[in-house]
């Protein structure tokens, strides 16, 4: 038996809230799925799911929308993790996009993200007819996220209507939908980036090694430091690669994820750097800088 519990800390309260949310979905949804992006937020979300249903295995599958441009280390980590936990893993890629040869180097970040990520996600949700999909988005990430409900309603066309959101009272969530409609559920809405890191530290959650600094080959591309992850990077670019101590604050498609120079190779050092840094974690993401309301627009179109 553990020690007597005194007052709950903020991490305890956030954890309990997330678990409550996941159990509501498990009880009310007909066909839920957890979107697993292999990043640190997904790692925390998955860990919370393990806790929420213990000693049962979480009663839903994991799904990864693979743009085929993720870091290869992420894919290895994903497959090993799913096998360890014993949850089903669904991997979906937009075959039409692959056939058309869509990629960030040839089509740019906006087209690539729309076709491989947004359309890929919509295809997958339609194919498996999931009615509730968990996502690891946080309200502190971006201004339109800050306004989104925990249970975020989507029309049958996967659209989000920010001006007409369902009121959300206490911890009493309305998960009712009609056929074809769906809900995106964000159990870690109220966590901040610092909370995530502290929780990873407290719970000793394993994360993809790319978060830790190491010597990696990087090139300068469109204002960011991009890691050479495979042969698909144009050769003239690859030729410019230099070895640097870098790490990543977020993980996505490798050509769209800027590295930061760092020697932080422990959790404590990463947190220390984050607390002393002067730029937000999304700065490394090309997708957010396109226009002021860019995320809100993407979300209305079905992006997670």
């Amino acid at each position, binding site marked *: 038996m553990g020690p007597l519990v005194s007052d709950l800390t*903020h991490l305890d309260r956030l954890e309990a809230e997330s678990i*409550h949310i996941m159990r509501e979905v498990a009880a009310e949804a007909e066909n839920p799925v957890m979107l697993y992006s292999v990043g640190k937020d997904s790692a925390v979300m998955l860990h919370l799911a393990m806790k929420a249903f213990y000693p*049962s*295995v979480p009663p839903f599958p994991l799904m990864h929308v693979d743009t085929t441009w993720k870091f290869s280390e992420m894919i290895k980590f994903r497959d090993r993790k799913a096998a360890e936990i014993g949850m089903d893993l669904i991997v979906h890629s937009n075959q039409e996009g692959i056939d058309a040869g869509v990629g960030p180097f040839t089509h740019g970040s906006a087209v690539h993200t729309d076709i491989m990520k947004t359309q890929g996600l919509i295809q997958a949700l339609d194919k498996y007819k999931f009615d509730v999909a968990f996502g690891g988005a946080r309200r*502190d990430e971006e201004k339109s996220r800050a306004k989104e409900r925990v249970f975020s309603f989507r029309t049958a066309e996967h659209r989000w209507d920010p001006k007409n959101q369902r009121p959300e009272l206490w911890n009493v969530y309305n998960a009712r939908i009609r056929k074809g409609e769906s809900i995106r559920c964000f159990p870690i809405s109220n966590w901040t980036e610092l909370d995530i890191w502290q929780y990873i530290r407290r719970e000793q959650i394993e994360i993809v090694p790319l978060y830790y600094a190491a010597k990696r080959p990087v090139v300068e591309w469109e204002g960011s430091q991009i890691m050479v992850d495979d042969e698909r990077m144009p050769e003239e670019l690859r030729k410019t690669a230099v070895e640097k101590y870098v790490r990543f604050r977020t993980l996505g498609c490798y050509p769209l994820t800027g590295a930061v120079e760092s020697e932080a190779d422990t959790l404590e050092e990463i947190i220390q750097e984050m607390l002393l840094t002067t*730029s937000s974690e999304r700065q490394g993401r090309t997708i957010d800088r396109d226009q002021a309301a860019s995320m809100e627009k993407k979300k209305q179109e079905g992006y997670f």
Partner: protein
Amino acid sequence: MSHQSDLIADDINAYLEAHENKSLLRFITCGSVDDGKSTLIGRLLYDSKMIFEDQLEALESDSKRHGTQGDQIDFALLVDGLAAEREQGITIDVAYRFFSTDRRKFIVADTPGHEQYTRNMATGASTADLAILMIDARKGILTQTRRHSFIASSLGIRKLILCINKMDLVEYDEAVFNNIEQDFLEFANELNAGIEIQAIPVSALAGDNITSISDNTPWYTGPSLMEYLETVPVGDERKAAPFRMPVQWVNRPNLDFRGFSGQIASGSIKPGDKIKTLPSAKETTVERVVVHGGDLAEGIAGQSVTLTFADEVDTSRGDVICAANDPAEVSDQFQARILWMSDDAMLPGRRYLLKTGAKTVTALVSGLKYRIDVNDLQDRPAKTLNLNEVGVCTLSLDQAIAFDPYDVNRETGGFILIDRLTNNTVGLGMLDFALRRAGNIHWQALDVDRETLASQKDQKPAVLWFTGLSGSGKSTIANALQKKLFSMGKHTFVLDGDNVRHGLNRDLGFTDEDRVENIRRVSSVAKLMTDAGLITLVSFISPFRSERRMARNLMSEGEFIEIHVDTPLSVAEERDVKGLYKRARAGEIKNFTGIDSPYEAPKDPEITIDTVNNTPESAADEIVRWMEAKGLLDA
């Protein structure tokens, strides 16, 4: 990012240990448009170093494009994140923001000021420990201030900070501050009792009294806003309350384990504690408090746990596990306060889905007693509730649920209403009390029974139920009959529609719903009078067959005598003793039986009185003869 702390650079481990054990305060900011709510939050984030350089750059460019502060940074743009909000310069939906200091972590819900977005304000308030009310020092207490205070306090927020803002624009005048504080305290007397109020003079734009005490207000001796937020005790009365846990999910990984998962709503629980599951009222003992990584010696309010029981007790999702010695109440009839949140009005008589805790049931809004004007807190008569209106309603559920009054326990007393067709959340509600305690009230056995009481009076009790149109002659005949029975030595009483509406049913109108309730109450009273051994004469229009049937079913076999005072509408209207038909025809009276509200004539009444060819006297004689023939007037 984050607040300044030397520990971050010097000793990150020590910093992390300290930060990990901080407590959490959730609060909302509310007030009128342009009072500076968003500016205040922007200021708190900025002053606690929660804004990154790239965000600051974006803010500076946005300030030039959309800002309202000239060349200065418009902090409001930090929080007004939706495109429509930035275009219109207003806050539409709740925005959640996060910051921390060395002492605490905060979650702020910035809530909209416009009345049309009141429902979004309630969304933010429902999870908050504290509310900051922004007041423009130049304008004082406004309607919106009152509305927001009322909603915040109704939703159970017990701590209010009165942020009297824009003090720089009134030359930091102490008198202005004192007057506004005084005005508010007077108004606050009408709110829920037990609210703690702290008034602070600030300028969100200039930063006075936000993170430190300002030299501009030497007359102010209280704490700065930040100091108050960091130190105000987060009243965890939830921990001291009796144990409650709604069951969310039954955890059955294999045949050997059966647990009940949920978040502890109040109180605490240990292995060996006696519990009762409601509404089934089965008792057992808790065996384990299971969480991942090892069982707990004790689970406390706020934690998500899984409980196992010593015995196989049938428990499922939606049940509430309670302390056995102090369980919740169980009922299917309630009085509740409802805040309506849909564009389609709430209609009494309509069925909605009601979700409370993990339980969803069907609820009929059986009545709307009155509306509370959120601007002046006065009761107003109402037929429906429109968007953002608050009303006191009666609810009838299709099954009994466990609950506590909302003012006692937010977790087990709050509910949402869901439209069955659109699935939208259309209302939020707070249970006040049960109208019928399904479990608690038992029939009191009486030693002097109804037969004894009747035989003492040498009579048989009966209900003579006169039904007919207004002006048909019901009361006149009942009056004549009572005189005859009295002279025969019988003990009688007349329940007259008009008279009862002056007292017992004063709160009821003439809508279909109210007519139903009117008859329900009168038949209950008539029933009690027959128990007392009386011959009871009920003179009510009682236009609906189903309600007369309800009254009949309440009485013992043979004691209900339905008397149809059968006067044609044309005759009653021509008599028009009280002048009511004329007014109804003129449209001055709504829902008048026979004119714009139906009368369903009895199909098989015991007695039918023809008032066109009979006087009241002869009609009364006819009823006496009928009673004699049935032996009702024998001892």
